[in-house]
Structures are given as C-alpha cells and as structure tokens.
C-alpha cells in the first residue's frame, strides 16, 4: 500500500507551547505598556466628543430629526386611532346610525380646521414644544385616514362579509377575516400619504412654537439670516423629496 500518504500525528506539546508563547507575548507587551481596557471604555465618550468637534454636524440635524420624529409619531397614532372609527362610520359592518352619522359629521368638521390652527391651540394648553405639534398631527392624520378608510370599507367585496355572516361569525371575526385583509393595502397606502403631508406640515409647525425645524426657520427669518434660510430650505426639500420617493415606492408595491 504505497499510495497511502502517512500523515504524521500532530505534536500536541509543541502546539500548546507555541500558542502559550504567543499569548504570553501579547499579554506581556500589553502589561508592559500598561494597557487598560477599562480606560478605553470610559474614555470612549471623550473620543466621541472630539470626533464630533472634528467633524461638526450641522446645527439643523437635531431639529430635523425632531421633525421626522413628530411626523412618525403623529401619523402612526393618528392612523391607528382612525381604524376603529372608520369601521364605526362605515355603514356595511357595524350599522348603528346614531353612532355613524355624528361620527361622520365630526370627521368632516375635523378636516376643515388646518393643522396649524390646532397646533396653535395646543401650544396654549401644553406649552411651547413638540408635544403640541404631535397632537395636532395626530388629529390631522386621524381625520384624513378615517375619512379615506371608511370610504374604502364601504367599497369592499360584500361576498366575503356575507359568507362569514352566514356561518354565524360575530362582528369582530367579520372585521378580522373579511374587512382587514381587503383594506390593509389601502390602509397602509393612506397612512403613508398622511405621512407625506405630515412631514411637510411638521416642517412648518415650529412657526407657532410647536417644535421641529420650523423654529429654526422662524428664527433665521426673524434675524434676516437668509443664508441660513436657504440652507434650511434645501435640507427640508431634500428630505421631503426622499421620503416622498420612498413612500411612493412602498405604495406602488402594495397596490
């Protein structure tokens, strides 16, 4: 059997010794150089601060993120609240006239009042800050999404509703298995639409003291620092353009 290659058995001892030597070298040099790992961790923050001073972030980055946070929060909670109200205002699922008619009237009135006016009123109640703006955005997205959504609920295919009803399904089962699967893409699409509008209005809500990048706008304009105004215009324009593009993509993939 000469075609066999005979592999020599590994030399255990040599391996252990060589690994030990390498580790000892590394540890030894670290100890000799007085390297302290805890110091690195505690010093990270200082390093970060120096980095931030080396590459300064523009002053508008904070308010810009705040604007986006406001738009996200306002849209999400407003759209979430809109769902039960939309189901109650549609005549084909829960048909209770003395709830449906006042609800629709209320939604109509809600949509006639601009978000800026709401924001100004909430500033009087909650004080200056983004909380007032977020509440105004929640109300606006709620009104918009609820209106659009109840119209889509009324336009769903009644066959699935009837099929479930004939099996004796209760209203919640009906909503879960006949309504939600049919309207979910539209629901998400309306929410994204509201988000697009909210990003734009969140950018100007600061004008009445309701937080976000609008505050910088107001200040820059009041002090006639037009180069700052231009910077802010470009920044908000690019952000809105990007978000519109993104949301149009998502919406197209849904429908």
């Amino acid at each position, binding site marked *: 059997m000469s075609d066999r290659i005979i592999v020599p058995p590994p030399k255990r001892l040599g391996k252990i010794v060589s690994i030990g030597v390498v580790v000892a070298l590394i540890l030894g040099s670290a100890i000799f150089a007085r390297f302290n790992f805890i110091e690195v961790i505690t010093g990270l923050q200082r390093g970060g601060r120096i980095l931030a001073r080396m590459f300064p972030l523009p002053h508008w980055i904070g308010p810009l993120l705040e604007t986006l946070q406001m738009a996200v929060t306002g849209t999400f909670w407003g759209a979430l609240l809109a769902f039960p109200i939309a189901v109650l205002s549609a005549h084909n699922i829960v048909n209770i006239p003395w709830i449906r008619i006042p609800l629709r009237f209320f939604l109509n009135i809600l949509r006639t*009042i*601009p978000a*800026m*006016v709401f924001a*100004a009123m909430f500033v*009087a109640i909650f*004080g200056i800050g983004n*909380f007032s703006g977020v509440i105004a955005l929640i109300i606006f997205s709620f009104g918009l999404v609820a209106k659009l959504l109840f119209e889509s609920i009324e336009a769903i295919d009644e066959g699935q509703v009837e099929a479930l009803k004939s099996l004796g399904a209760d209203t919640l089962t009906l909503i879960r298995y006949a309504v939600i699967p049919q309207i979910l893409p539209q629901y998400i699409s309306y929410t994204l639409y509201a988000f697009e509008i909210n990003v734009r209005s969140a950018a100007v809500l600061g004008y009445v003291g309701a937080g976000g990048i609008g505050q910088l706008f107001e200040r820059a304009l009041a002090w006639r620092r037009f180069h700052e105004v231009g910077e802010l215009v470009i920044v908000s324009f690019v952000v809105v353009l990007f978000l519109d593009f993104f949301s149009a993509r998502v919406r197209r993939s849904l429908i």
Partner: protein
Amino acid sequence: MSKNFEPKIYYRTAFPLDSEGRFLVPPPYSKMELLGRFINYLGLALIVIWGLIGLQFKGIMQTAEATLDSFGRAFIQPDLSYLFDLSVDGLPWALLETISIAIAGTFVSAILSLPFALLASENLVGPKVAAWGKTIITAIRTFPELILALLFISVVGPGASAGILALGVHSIGMLGKLFFEAIEAMDMGPKEALESCGGRPLEILFRAILPQISPELISFTLYRFEINMRAAATLGLVGAGGIGAPLIFAINGRQWPRAAIIILVLIVTVIIIDNLSAVIRKRLVSGR
C-alpha cells in the same frame, strides 16, 4: 362505449387542483418569509419607539384648565361683534380676502400647470422629456407652501398677493400631475387627424387636446380650489393675507371668543364650498 366514457367532474374549490385531483394548498410561510416579516415588524416598532423618544411632554400648562374653560365658553358666546364688523378689520373682509386668495391662486396655478403638464405627457413629448417634466412637477409639489409664501412675502411684501403667488406656484405640483395623467389617458385620434392635415402645434393644442380633457381639467381645478381654500386660511400665519392672521393673533393673545367665531365661520365656509364644488364636479364628470 359506455366503458370508455368517463364523466369529467369539475370541482370548484378555493385552491387549484393538480392533475390527480389533489388540492394544491399553498405552502405556509417559508422560514425566510417569516424572517422577512419579523424584520419588517421589528423595523416598524423601532421607528415608532424612536418617534416616541423625541416627544417632550412637559406636563400641562398651569393655566390649561382656565384656558380650556374659557375656550369652551367662547364657543357658546363667540365674538359676534367681530362677525358683523363690516370694516377692513372685520371678519367678513378677512373671509372674503381668504376666498379671493384661493380663487386667484387656483386660477394662476391652473394656467401655469398646463405647460408643465404638456411637457410631462409621454404621448406628446416622448419619454425622455416627459421624465424631466415629471421630475419638475414632483419637485414643485414637495416644496412646502408656507416657505414659498415666505419667499413671496420678501418679493411683494406681506399681504394677499404673496398668498396668491404661493398658492399659484405650489398648486402646479398637484394640478400638473393630475393634468398630465389626464392628457396621457386621452384619445390620440383627433391629434393624429389634425397632424396629418398639417395642423400647427397650437392648433393641435386648442382643437384636439384641450376640448377632450377640459371637463377633467375643470374638475381637478375645482378640487384643488377646495384644498386651496384650507391652505389660504393658514397662509395668514406667516403674513400672506387672509383669515389666518387674525386667527393666530386671537389664539396667541388668548382672545378665545374671537378665535371661536373665526373657527366657526371657517368651518361653515369650507363645508359650503366643498359641497358646492362637489356638486359642480359631479355634473361636469357625468356630462350634465
């Protein structure tokens, strides 16, 4: 003969059948799909939490109860003298100014939108030019209205003209989009007929394109007018004329009876205009 005959049975089921008559049930989600869904939900949850982190809730103002109280009372007893003040500082004047800003702004944008829409229609100018036209329209649409208003205030000074210009330019974004969609969906027959007879571009525009799409154009313009009516009410916040300025002054000055009457009048006006315009639009689209 009867042996060869095998009746074919067609089943109607929710799932398609394979050649041997077994149900082809779609497989449950694969692991990758489940992972994808999980990542989507996780991402959404993270974004929502991130949004909540930024919220600065400083508690309710100490004066909030009194504010709400007087605000509620203001709606029962609104400032009626302001409603019947027929001078330049009165509510009717501000309301008329708002409506005229909306009308004039919508008119300006309807005229301005047409060339943009023509430039963005693939069936008139070809895909390359149309892509540019569409990009320009999108860019106009994304530019915030109030910032446009601020820019125009620095051009023509504070007042209604700034508001008209801001609405006129901003509405191109939406009207241009609706217009070019209408043009792209139109029948190309009349245009080709005129072209083959040697019609000039303007003749084609006025005799083949506009007559076909004008009901839609008018309907879209009216719809935009409804939106502009609301927008005109906020433009006053930055000094571009209309009912917004007295409203914001009343709110900032805590003159609730006055704020209440403005809000009430605004609601009624917007609802009336919405319904009027909806009736006209329905007639236009159905062709009387």
